[in-house]
């Protein structure tokens, strides 16, 4: 397989409702990524797009619909979709286009226009549940996460305030992100604990918001990357794994499928000791407890240890293991697939030394990003090197 580098990234604002259509958002993000890479659309060999359920935008065959805004017209083009896991998975699909030799330059564009869906995007989320066994009970999708969160807290005797610290850290980190929707420089643990209870133990400020947004990456083969970029960031390892949709089959306290995806990616990247070697990490954080769950799934600490690391400041931007320095989904926003900009995009910017005010100290060399989705059963992981 050929080496593949990220040489450009771009993203739109993340907002509850943007004036741009999905296609227009795709165009804006793509143009930013192409400009950073110093290339034009005519240099692109293939395009991969990623987007979550069609039911958010209210357009069936969203991949086809977005194609002209994503630069796909007249080229090999495909859409991938693994729910929230698309946030890293479309970049993996872009990687295999280049690694295989099929394309020298692949543009990856992710998009979500959740504002179209009314009365709330939750209406679409509701149809992830099994239509026979679960839908008749009229659950909100938050209920399933509330159970997972509670199981995690119970298994390890974790206090709610230790989970709330994640929301505080990320919403404060997001103050330095120019695209952020829910940054808050003054938020406290008490604010999170005092916010509206939605489904215990999930409260309003434990959750990321629905958003509109798009993001893009330019992936290139080694010779192209070296020609166009002084700071290419290499995709060293990729991994992904799905567990059963019969989520009742597994113990919710630990995401085994994340660990399997992580092992696959670490193995390919020849990372023997991730706890020693990983300098910066962007785990998927649509809920505050998910950052903790995913740090453990990514094997970056022991099971149940992530809240302690958070409490001790290890996961702060200037800590030993900077975690979600972008501000994450909790602070920047959660336009499902488009979160690629704060996962893969952020690790690219961090390792290229281009993260500006968000830059973690000590010129990080090894970064990991991860996304998570479908019916809390799928994970995608990418290991990147400066």
């Amino acid at each position: 397989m050929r080496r593949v580098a990220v040489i450009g990234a771009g993203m739109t604002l993340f907002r509850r409702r943007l004036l741009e259509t999905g296609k227009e958002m795709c165009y804006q993000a793509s143009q930013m990524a192409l400009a950073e890479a110093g290339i034009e659309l005519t240099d692109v060999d293939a395009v991969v797009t990623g987007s979550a359920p069609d039911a958010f935008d209210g357009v069936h065959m969203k991949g086809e619909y977005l194609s002209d805004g994503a630069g796909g017209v007249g080229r090999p083009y495909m859409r991938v979709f693994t729910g929230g896991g698309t946030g890293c998975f479309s970049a993996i699909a872009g990687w295999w286009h280049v690694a295989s030799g099929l394309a020298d330059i692949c543009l990856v564009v992710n998009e979500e226009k959740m504002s179209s869906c009314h009365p709330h995007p939750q209406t679409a989320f509701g149809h992830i549940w099994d239509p026979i066994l679960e839908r008749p009970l009229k659950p909100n999708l938050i209920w399933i996460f509330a159970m997972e969160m509670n199981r995690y807290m119970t298994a390890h005797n974790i206090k709610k305030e230790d989970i709330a610290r994640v929301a505080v850290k990320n919403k404060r980190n997001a103050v330095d992100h120019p695209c952020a929707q829910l940054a808050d420089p003054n938020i406290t643990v008490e604010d999170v604990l005092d916010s509206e209870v939605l489904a215990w133990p999930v409260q309003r400020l434990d959750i990321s918001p629905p958003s509109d947004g798009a993001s893009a990456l330019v992936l290139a083969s080694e010779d192209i990357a070296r020609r166009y970029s002084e700071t290419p960031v290499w995709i060293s390892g990729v991994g992904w794994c799905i567990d059963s949709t019969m989520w009742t089959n597994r113990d919710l306290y630990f995401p085994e499928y994340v660990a399997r995806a992580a092992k696959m990616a670490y193995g390919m990247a020849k990372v023997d000791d991730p706890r020693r070697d990983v300098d910066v990490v962007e785990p998927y954080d649509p809920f505050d407890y998910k950052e903790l769950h995913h740090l453990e799934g990514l094997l970056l600490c022991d099971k149940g240890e992530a809240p302690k690391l958070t409490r001790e400041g290890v996961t702060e931007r200037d800590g030993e293991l900077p975690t979600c320095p972008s501000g994450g989904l909790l602070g920047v926003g959660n336009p499902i697939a488009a979160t690629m900009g704060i996962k893969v995009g952020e690790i690219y910017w961090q390792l290229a030394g281009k993260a500006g005010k968000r830059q973690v100290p000590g010129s990080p060399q090894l970064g990991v990003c991860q996304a998570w989705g479908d019916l809390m059963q799928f994970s995608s992981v990418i290991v990147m090197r400066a």
Partner: protein
Amino acid sequence: MADEVRRWRGDMEAYYIYTAGVAGDRFLREIRDNGRLMGTYCPRCDVIYLPPRIYCETCFSELNEWEEVPNKGVIDAITVAYVNDKGERLPQPLVWALVRFPGARGGLVHFVSLPEEDVREGMEVEVVYRRTGRREAAITDILYFKPV
């Protein structure tokens, strides 16, 4: 009772409020307020997009120049519909056409105010708008194409 076990009724109850977008907003306003078709021009590729876009899909230039497209175009493709979107018989057949406009890349689809036997490809037609004051910045502000 057997039937009750075999099936469960459900519906996907979402409704949608779509975003017209940067280009779509101007396009629809121009129809409502000025009764004219406006496209965007790509100087690099020398094409006018109709419907307008803020980008050129070929070279990805950002398009800021707006050009009026004539209200008269030429029928490029036709169908005569006998059933509606639910598969029900229409009381009268509807003639539906793709119309292209001089100098523009793209085109518009809409109804044609002619009996099916009188419509031909290559026929010159013009846009008929809803009366001023009744327009609501929607594609339905165009009522139909009529022969020139």
